[in-house]
């Protein structure tokens, strides 16, 4: 009874996913449970294994091992059934050069054998004034929106958006976010991969931080910060001599580099202690800022700061 209940609420259930390309282990043991109607974000640096994971969920790639159920269906065996229930924007979405958004949506509607919703979709994505412009002449953001329209043409229950805003300017990115929020309000399940923390924080109900083909942390942004974060931090600019002042206070960690201090602490009482100590020291300081740790802080802690590809 409980199991059945679980099946009905899960949109994605993946167990023990592995995928290698030659010697490279792209996905090295990933389990996922994504509930219906939630926005789930796979967050990680380039080359972390996000796209390979999502492509296995979509049925574009076959895993070396592991099992996947999407809406209770096997993405390889039931691919034709699933294609009618899912909408996909692959990474680096591209379309036939000289076809307009309106024509592209009409084309997809015929292929999926569903009513043509081009007017509605074009309006929703704000493509009205370019609905008759050929694909090559559209801007990056407009092209991505065409991708969204195509992914939505079959009115899918579940959407896979693989880095939908990569390479877009901030304004175009925010436009796409707006559309995604609208889709979220329509109770569609959305799986969003991104390497922009801001995007995951802005849109996702739950986040999985992926690195080296593994999930490093999973939960709501709040849960992740609580579990993996170190509490609060104080930033202040000042001379090196202040280091002594901070060292005297127990239970805090102080980092210093080129005139900038980062102090990590847990108790609000420590704030009072630190401010008093600063005042007493008589040394110059400026730009004092106290904040809770963000997802970005945790993310950088978890994956390190080294460049990967």
């Amino acid at each position, binding site marked *: 009874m409980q199991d059945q209940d679980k099946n009905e609420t899960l949109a994605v259930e993946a167990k023990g996913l592995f995928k290698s390309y030659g010697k490279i282990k792209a996905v090295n043991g990933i389990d996922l449970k994504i509930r219906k109607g939630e926005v789930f974000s796979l967050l990680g640096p380039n080359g972390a294994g996000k796209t390979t994971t999502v492509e296995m969920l979509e049925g*574009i790639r076959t895993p070396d091992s592991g099992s996947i159920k999407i809406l209770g269906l096997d993405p390889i065996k039931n691919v034709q059934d699933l294609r009618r229930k899912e909408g*996909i924007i692959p990474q680096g979405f591209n379309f036939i050069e000289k076809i307009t958004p309106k024509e592209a949506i009409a084309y997809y509607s015929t292929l999926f054998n569903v009513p043509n919703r081009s007017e509605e979709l074009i309006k929703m994505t704000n493509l009205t004034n370019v609905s008759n412009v050929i694909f090559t002449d559209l801007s990056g953001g407009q092209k991505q929106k065409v991708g969204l329209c195509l992914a939505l043409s079959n009115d899918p229950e579940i959407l896979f958006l693989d880095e939908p805003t990569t390479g877009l300017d901030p304004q175009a990115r925010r436009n796409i976010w707006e559309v995604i929020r609208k889709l979220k309000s329509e109770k569609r399940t959305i799986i969003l991969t991104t390497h922009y923390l801001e995007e995951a924080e802005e849109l996702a109900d739950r986040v999985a931080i992926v690195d080296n083909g593994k999930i490093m942390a999973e939960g709501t942004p709040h849960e992740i910060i609580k579990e993996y974060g170190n509490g609060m931090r104080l930033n202040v600019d000042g001379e090196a001599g202040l280091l002594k002042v901070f060292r005297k206070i127990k239970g805090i960690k102080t980092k210093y580099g080129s005139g900038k201090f980062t102090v990590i602490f847990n108790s609000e009482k420590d704030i009072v202690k630190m401010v008093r100590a600063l005042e007493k020291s008589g040394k110059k300081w400026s730009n004092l800022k106290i904040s809770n740790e963000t997802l970005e802080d945790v993310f950088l802690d978890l994956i390190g700061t080294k460049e990967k590809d």
Partner: protein
Amino acid sequence: MRLANIKADFVVYARNFLRTRSALFFTLLFPIIFLLVFGAIFSGGSTKVPLSVQNLNNGSAISLSFVSALNSTGLVTITAVPSNANIQTYINQNSIDAALVIPADFAQEVASSQNVNISFYYNPSQSSAQTAEQAVNLVIQSFNFKIANATPIIHAYVSPVSTTAVGYINYLIPGLIGFSVLTAGVFSMTNIVSSYKKEKIFRQLSLTPLTKGEWMVSKFTWNAIMAVVAIVLMISVGDLVFGAGITFNLYILPIVFFGVFGFISLGIVAGSISKNEETAAIIGNVITFPMMFLAGTFFPVSSMPMYLQEIAKFLPLYYVINGMNAIMLFGNVPGLLFNTGIVAAISLAFFFISMRVFSWKES
């Protein structure tokens, strides 16, 4: 196979094609340009070949009548070489393909019935030189008969092989129809398959219910329509500009359609096996260029050396053109059927290979 899918994909492909000027140019205009250029070069103009003559026996009646006999064969246009010129040097300096020297003692030797040699110089690589040699031999023979007081008994009765005269232009039109079927099919598919692969459009299509088979049927349909348009254009231009006697013949459609089918399959194979668009373009050229020159596009295969004729028999385009020639020039239905059968078999083979190597999925 869902007809609606084929239709939708056909409409998208046709729109994209019609909005791409280069595609239109290569499919329709390019063969017409070839028709105009080759038609203009080989028909309507003078069929006479140049022949340089150095008459060292100038002034003798018999040498002059020899030259005028040459003139009246209608095969050569005679240019006189100054009698003081060294003939070898003169040939080299003026790039002459055929030259004749009448010796100084020509009249005297003929009068005394002595053997006399006229020297004929020619460039063996030029077919025009062979025509000049023919003219010279013809005149020598008739002079010999006259001197020997004999009359030739055997005459050739010359008549054209077809009810309509088979002029060069009439060979050129079926040849260029074959050319356009070949290039349109191979080039458009190598280009589309390699670029769709690179631009990830196949991946995009694989996310829809459209099948590879439906996609191929729509490409075949479009190419078949383009082939018919090219045929009508070519026959009309041939008729209007060169007065070619070829009319549209429905019987050629099966061989043309099998040709389209085979060549788009071949293009899909070439596009599938190449890593990128550049390699695909090279492979496309390697397939089409030798084939279009050797399979009788611009010249009848029978005018080529034997070993090239043997090579031509391995080229699918040869059978496409042969079949069209059979029906369009000679009204030869069995010839058409035979070639249609061969083209159908080759095309099916290409199709099966293409289905093996063509994939929308990424490796």
